[in-house]
């Protein structure tokens, strides 16, 4: 062979670099849960909505909460974790309700079921029906419960996918939007 060692080394180095790059890209996906839905709306304006109140059927707009931080909870009565976290959200509303607006949005459930549950548990905060799940799709909901934390400027700061297991979990999350 008459090839210079420099050329040969260069070819091998190129092949090794390309292989390493390819393996690096593939390795990025290994170890991550393929079923985990990414949260893309962080730092973006919360989608606007107009829904009807479960209490009296009156229209409620997202603009009605403008200037106040907002906790938006998607839930359903067929979802056991949603029911389990309800006392924590009720406590949170009593504790932070003067500084933060609390809104529940019923996901893929009948209004009658939701109304009966809320009546039974003397829930106080605003509850809305999203009968066609349009708002759920706008927010990128992929299951319930999901809770969105929106600051007073209408920007989504964070999202909790899954139930709050304790009051302290909620407290640490809500602190990011408190004025």
């Amino acid at each position, binding site marked *: 062979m008459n*090839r210079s060692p420099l050329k040969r080394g260069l*070819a091998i180095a190129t*092949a090794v670099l390309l292989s390493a790059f390819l393996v690096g890209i593939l390795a990025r996906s290994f170890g991550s849960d393929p079923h985990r839905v990414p949260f893309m709306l962080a730092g973006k304006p919360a989608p606007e909505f107009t829904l009807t109140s479960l209490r009296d059927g009156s229209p409620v707009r997202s603009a009605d909460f403008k200037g106040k931080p907002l906790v938006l909870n998607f839930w359903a009565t067929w979802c056991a974790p949603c029911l*389990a976290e309800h006392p924590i959200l009720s406590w949170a509303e009593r504790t932070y309700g003067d500084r933060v607006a609390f809104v529940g949005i019923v996901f*893929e459930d009948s209004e009658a079921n939701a109304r009966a549950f809320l009546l*039974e548990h003397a829930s106080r905060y605003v509850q809305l029906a999203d009968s*066609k799940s349009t708002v759920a*799709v*706008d927010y990128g909901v992929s299951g319930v419960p999901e809770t969105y934390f929106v600051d007073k400027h209408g920007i989504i700061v964070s999202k909790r996918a899954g139930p709050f297991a304790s009051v302290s979990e909620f407290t640490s999350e809500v602190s990011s939007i408190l004025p």
Partner: protein
Amino acid sequence: MTTLIAATAAIFFLAQDGRAPTRVGTEPLDAAREARVQTLGGKFRCAVCQGVSIRDSPASMARAQLDKVRELVAQGKGDLEVEDYFVDRYGEWALMEPRKSGAALWLWILPLLLLATGIVIIVRATRGAGGLEPVPPAPRPLTADLEKVRAELKE
């Protein structure tokens, strides 16, 4: 305490048929636009399913997502705008096939680059060695006995 409340509530609602209601999707558009809706529906992953498109999933949420596709198509949005709507909310996870752009593009290009590099290396190596032609063995020097035999044969 929380578990007890949840269990009580669950029993309460199971007793009064607390299942999620079946929801009817919006009306189909005209034939041409509805065909577009169905094609696009096959490209997006149902948010609450396991690897099923919103067109093929019977889930109520998938129907809601397909309704959103229908709404966007009815508004005159292009395919890319509809795709962006879902990617903005669910990331590229929403796509049944990854986009051929960004980091994912390298997954398409790199194997081809590696193949091309391998071919170049092989071609150069074979050329440097004088190709694949068989090389004849060098003539061996004759021994004294062989010289003698050759001389006798000439006579």
